């Protein structure tokens, strides 16, 4: 018998801190759009980067987003967290560098091998947009 429980806030935060990959949900004109995304959670914000495209258009049109992260062992053993909040572009140079450093530290294979001083230049050169999600609610469910 598969029973599902609500996760505590502590369990939710722990899962977000362990994860490196999730799914970003955006919407425009009441149409949903979901994409897989690497991220880092710094304890306050979910940070991720992307290149300009459909996602950034959606987020510009509607700041409300959600971010879903799961840990699945099999179909009977899983936990899944969803954060809802506001996506904000990170553009101040100091913030950009700090965010990129965190993202790259957490996902070392995500970018070409870069040293710290090269990160900002690489980000600019590749038209990388960095976003942070300021959570306003977190929900979690897991199998009992």
């Amino acid at each position, binding site marked *: 018998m*598969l029973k599902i*429980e609500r996760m505590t806030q502590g369990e939710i935060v722990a899962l977000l801190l362990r994860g490196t990959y999730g799914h970003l949900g955006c919407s425009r004109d009441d149409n*949903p759009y979901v994409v*897989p995304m*690497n991220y880092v959670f710094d304890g306050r914000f979910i940070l991720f980067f992307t290149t300009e495209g459909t996602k950034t258009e959606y987020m510009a049109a509607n700041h409300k987003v959600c971010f*879903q992260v799961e840990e699945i062992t099999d*179909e009977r053993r899983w936990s*899944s967290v969803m954060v809802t909040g506001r996506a904000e572009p990170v553009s101040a140079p100091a913030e950009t560098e700090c965010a990129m450093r965190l993202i790259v530290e957490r996902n070392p294979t995500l970018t070409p091998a870069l040293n710290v001083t090269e990160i900002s230049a690489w980000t600019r050169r590749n038209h990388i947009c960095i976003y942070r999600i300021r959570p306003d609610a977190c929900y979690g469910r897991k199998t009992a």
Partner: protein
Amino acid sequence: MIKRLSDDEAWALLRAARLGRLGCIADGAPYVVPVNYAADGACVLVHTLPGRKLAAMRANPRVCLQVDDITDQYHWRSVIAHGTFEEIRNGVERARALGHLLAQFPELTPVETLLAGDVAAPAPVVFRVRVERLTGLVEN
């Protein structure tokens, strides 16, 4: 290099996978949950218990289902199906759809999927997403 998947390749991924992320709109904001599904022609079948996602889809039937197959950060395929939520209420159709789902997920009898602590378990709802547009990307 990232390339577009052909229609056939995109459908092949959608039909082969069992786990996707269902996106819908709840109170003007996106809402994403992982779901197990079974492909059925140009539709996918899903079962759920009444809750926030069902209420959201009844209010706005525009949904998407995102499915991926990720080996690592440079080797992956991902598709997104845009479509319409349709609740299956007709008894015969519902039985057929449930049969199709249970054939793929023999352990996940829907009546056994309960939110622990809920006293009276509501009947599971079976719905389909009619896929209207499917796009996909691949990097390898």
